């Protein structure tokens, strides 16, 4: 089975053809935005990182930035720095050059201030846009697809309708040779047995228990009940009572396949099939991490409703109930609430989601893209000074 994707020189497959203006440090975020606004057709992101990171945190942020910028949905990237930061454009360029990604670099201190940097940045971004415009979609096998899954603003219906329907679509994609990422480690807490029974080997099962134990230890160290934060207030209002309950509903998004690998935050899997990525629960942090890991499409379920998108990958929104679909139709692509009304089944909505993934991967815009939602956030370990 094929979809229409962009085959990059390094063999990776893109579902979008973005030119990204990326600040490697917070001090360059406004300049990056000014360049992007001046060159329609480009996009930029903002973040608070780039300086003061120690050890493992620096590694994590460099990995997330480099993998995000080298992503096949990005045709070319303009890396903008200040000049005195820890994570420079040159550092990220060094990481992505080996991947064959097209890039330009720019430093505000070298250029001599905001105006000069924006002027030079406009020229560089226009050059990247011209090169991007030569890319054409071509038929590629769906086994080249990596789909990230996420739920946000969940209610108890999420675990009954939207999540199992996404799981059904995940099983279909994996059966066709593709890859699905399940993430959000706090929402694996209480569902370890379900996942470990499906682990490809003992090492993977041990790794699943390791990442949930590390997350659970955060609430233990803080001396608080994890329920002070998870489930969230909206989750509880929606009927979710405990984190374990939320987790058991959340992992249904991954379907029923064998768990092939557990990767670090923003780490690229070397296996295909069902992959678990270690990440905190934060919706935008999860999306950014899964995109860096290689996801070209995100499928996002919601019960309470959320407009969230992502800068470089389409986010396909699935509602768990018909009430929120009616209230937030402009934000939600598919309503799994019809399963409750008996009009549809998990299998029929699963098929609908799978077909929509193929359409979106081939260029159909999701509602989050049409509305311009580009939320972006990188995980931080708090190891900074």
């Amino acid at each position, binding site marked *: 089975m094929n979809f229409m994707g962009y085959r990059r020189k390094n063999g990776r497959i893109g579902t979008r053809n973005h030119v990204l203006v990326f600040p490697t440090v917070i001090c360059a975020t406004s300049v990056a935005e000014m360049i992007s606004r001046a060159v329609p057709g480009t996009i930029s992101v903002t973040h608070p990182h780039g300086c003061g990171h120690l050890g493992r945190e620096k590694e994590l942020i460099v990995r997330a930035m480099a993998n995000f910028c080298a992503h096949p949905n990005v045709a070319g990237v303009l890396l903008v720095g200040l000049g005195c930061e820890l994570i420079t454009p040159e550092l990220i360029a060094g990481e992505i050059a080996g991947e064959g990604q097209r890039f330009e670099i720019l430093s505000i201190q070298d250029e001599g201030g905001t105006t000069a940097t924006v002027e030079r940045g406009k020229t560089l971004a226009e050059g990247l846009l011209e090169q991007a415009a030569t890319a054409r979609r071509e038929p590629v096998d769906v086994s080249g697809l990596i789909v990230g899954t996420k739920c946000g603003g969940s209610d108890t219906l999420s675990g009954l309708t939207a999540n199992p329907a996404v799981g059904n679509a995940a099983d279909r994609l994996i059966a066709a040779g593709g890859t699905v990422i399940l993430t959000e480690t706090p929402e694996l807490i209480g569902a370890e047995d379900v996942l470990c029974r499906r682990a490809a080997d003992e090492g993977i099962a041990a790794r699943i228990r390791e990442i949930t134990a590390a997350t659970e230890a955060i609430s233990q160290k803080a001396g608080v009940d994890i329920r002070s934060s998870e489930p969230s207030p909206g989750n509880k209002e929606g009927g979710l*009572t405990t984190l374990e309950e939320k987790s058991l509903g959340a992992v249904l998004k991954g379907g029923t396949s064998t768990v092939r690998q557990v990767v670090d935050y923003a780490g690229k899997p070397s296996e295909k099939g069902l992959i678990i990525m270690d990440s905190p629960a934060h919706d935008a942090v999860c999306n950014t991490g899964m995109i860096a890991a290689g996801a070209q499409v995100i499928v996002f379920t919601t019960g309470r409703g959320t407009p969230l998108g992502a800068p470089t990958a389409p986010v396909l929104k699935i509602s768990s109930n018909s009430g929120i679909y009616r209230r937030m139709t402009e934000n939600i692509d598919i309503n799994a609430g019809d399963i409750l009304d008996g009009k549809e089944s998990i299998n029929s909505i699963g098929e609908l989601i799978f077909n929509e993934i193929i359409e979106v991967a081939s260029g159909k815009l999701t509602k989050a893209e049409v509305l311009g939602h580009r939320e972006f956030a990188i995980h931080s370990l708090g190891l900074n000074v």
Partner: protein
Amino acid sequence: MSLSALVLHKNDNVATAVRPLENGGKVAVEIEDGVVDIEVLQPVPFGHKFALRDIKAGERIIKYGETIGQATEGIRKGEHVHLHNVEGLRGRGDRP
């Protein structure tokens, strides 16, 4: 067919309301191989849970066939099951 409540696994001791049960009363609940009537004792909002049988204090709450927490007090069949009578067992940094 429009359902009032769902049970996900034959071992579950709670059901999930899939429409608001404002006044309680008798509700048809679909379980694996049949339908049982449960007398719901109090209002249960859309998406919330109620007990399928009497649950003792300290007993595990089972949904999806797995443990989602434990009862902090006795819960009668048909009672609303939520934050007021269930606690989580994981991530309890508030406990020694």
